[in-house]
């Protein structure tokens, strides 16, 4: 199953390159088949426990090993579904938005990279996946034409730099332990200086790639410059990849002293991301930048949850972390698609373009608002679940009033930037007239993930259980 999931996008890409005419069809087909496969994998994992595959029959240690637990199968499913959705959106709008033909194979490659990343448990494989992901992402960003090159280039440089940092860390670790498989490495782990340095280097590289505060500078420009479907993919999925590796490293490898030393840093960075990202999102005059800054802010939650998890070792925080990831992926996809659709139709990049959007494009605006609700953490959305888990954890830990207040403040900030847009949309005095008749299908496609993230809440209990015991 896992192999299928990897091979299918690869084949898809190949065929797309061969027959560019039917590329969209192939992309959709690949994504839908992958979705089904991912679903099956999820069932398989939930029934039979973790699955492991060693590629090409090599023994463990040499072979590229793939391992699927319930979290990674969930993430794979999410990836595939979002690919499908975004593919549909791109298909619906590709004529209008002049999306280059390169989008289809690249998005397929993206899926490949992500799926491989969720499945890998080997430091170097992860490096390759990361690098693949980074390059594909940059290529996708550069699709939207000349104005995107500069941000794309910045993204690429920093991404490469991050990869190299990571690679250096891998090299040092390998030098010290001679193994790359994380589980084996964890068993031999000694919390000495070289491993600390290596860990730190990898961490920083990953933080750079995941745009975690304060290394987030490239993200807003890049995500804002990309075409709407690309931004959706980038924000929803790509930044989660490095985050996933980061969690792997710190939850499985790091020793107690290392964890204790780094936890406050993570939590602090998360908090700063939440607050400063929120403020930036609130103040930026451009619509897509707002959503991009919101990504920076929301990643802060994950970071905060990770920091708290490392600090207190409370399974609720693990659940919160992954719930944030899942909910944010869905919500952000919806946000970007909705905002992209609105700005395309109403013709403008500024947030003021949204004026009167509640009349001209009610569905898209509704999608944005609903997704925004999840970003804020309004019940009964996925964001609420995550926040609930976080709050529960903090209250159960006791005496964490500072963090609680900070979370409240961050939530308020997110509410402020979401509703800044929503309130503008209700402006009836001075609405922006659409350039052409709004189309319904893309708006519905934007609404789907938003509804999905609210529906997540109804499956909260199994989700929470699953993610709590997972904790990587």
């Amino acid at each position: 199953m896992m192999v299928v999931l990897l091979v299918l996008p690869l084949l898809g890409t190949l065929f797309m390159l061969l027959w560019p005419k039917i590329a969209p069809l192939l992309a959709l087909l690949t994504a839908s088949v992958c979705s089904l496969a991912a679903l099956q994998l999820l069932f398989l994992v939930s029934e039979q426990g973790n699955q492991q595959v060693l590629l090409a029959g090599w023994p463990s240690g040499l072979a590229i090993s793939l391992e699927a637990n319930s979290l990674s199968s969930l993430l794979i499913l999410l990836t595939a579904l979002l690919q499908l959705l975004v593919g549909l959106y791109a298909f619906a709008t590709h004529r209008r938005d002049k999306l280059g033909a390169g989008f289809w194979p690249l998005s397929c490659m993206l899926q490949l990279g992500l799926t491989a990343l969720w499945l890998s448990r080997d430091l170097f494989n992860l490096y390759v996946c990361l690098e693949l992901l980074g390059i594909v992402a940059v290529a996708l960003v550069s699709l939207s034409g000349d104005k995107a090159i500069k941000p794309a280039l910045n993204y690429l440089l920093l991404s490469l730099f991050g990869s190299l940092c990571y690679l250096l860390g891998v090299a040092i670790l390998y030098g010290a332990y001679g193994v790359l498989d994380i589980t084996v490495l964890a068993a031999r782990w000694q919390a000495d200086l070289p491993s600390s340095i290596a860990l730190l280097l990898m961490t920083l590289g990953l933080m750079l790639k995941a745009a975690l505060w304060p290394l987030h500078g490239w993200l807003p420009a890049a995500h804002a410059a990309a075409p709407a479907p690309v931004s959706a993919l980038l924000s929803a999925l790509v930044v989660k990849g490095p985050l996933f590796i980061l969690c792997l490293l710190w939850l499985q490898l790091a020793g107690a002293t290392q964890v204790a030393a780094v936890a406050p840093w993570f939590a602090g960075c998360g908090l700063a991301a939440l607050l400063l990202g929120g403020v930036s999102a609130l103040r930026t005059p451009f619509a897509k930048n707002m959503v991009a800054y919101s990504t920076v802010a929301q990643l802060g939650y994950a970071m905060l949850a990770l920091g708290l998890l490392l600090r207190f070792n409370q399974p609720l925080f693990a659940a919160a972390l992954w719930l944030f990831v899942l909910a944010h992926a869905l919500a952000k996809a919806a946000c970007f698609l909705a905002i992209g659709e609105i700005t395309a139709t109403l013709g403008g990049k500024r947030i003021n373009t949204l004026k009167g959007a509640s009349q001209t494009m009610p569905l898209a605006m509704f999608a944005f608002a609903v997704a925004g609700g999840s970003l804020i953490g309004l019940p009964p959305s996925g964001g609420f679940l995550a926040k609930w888990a976080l709050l529960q954890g903090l209250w159960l830990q006791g005496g964490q009033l500072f963090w609680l207040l900070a979370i409240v403040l961050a939530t308020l900030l997110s509410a402020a930037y979401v509703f800044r847009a929503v309130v503008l949309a209700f402006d009836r005095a001075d609405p922006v007239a659409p350039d052409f008749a709004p189309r319904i299908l893309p708006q519905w496609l934007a609404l789907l993930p938003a509804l999905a993230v609210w529906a997540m809440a109804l499956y909260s209990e199994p989700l929470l259980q699953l993610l709590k015991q997972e904790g990587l």
Partner: protein
Amino acid sequence: MTDLSSQLLLYIGTAAGLFGIGLYGFIVGPQTLRRILALNIIGAGIFMLMVVLAYRGLAEEAALTLTDPVLHALILTGLVVAVSATAFALALLTRLNQAKSAQCKPDQLRHGQEPEQ
């Protein structure tokens, strides 16, 4: 960690030096091309380190003469990745310059004085 021979130490030092130079170049910039090159230097440093470690990696279990094939494989993969990334970066840079020249700023181009971001 067993004792390190001075030779290995020299290699590691060189690798670190390369890394440092690359890092310095990357940070200071300001031209993109210089940054791309700096990244390549960093990469070279890391690969060098890996080559050295391939000798050292199995130091505890086997003789120094045996090298670790896994690391070599890794280096190869890394090189491929690095090369393709560099190529891609250069391609992007070219496109950027084309876009800029289309916007008729030939003077700046000639001197390579592109302001950051």
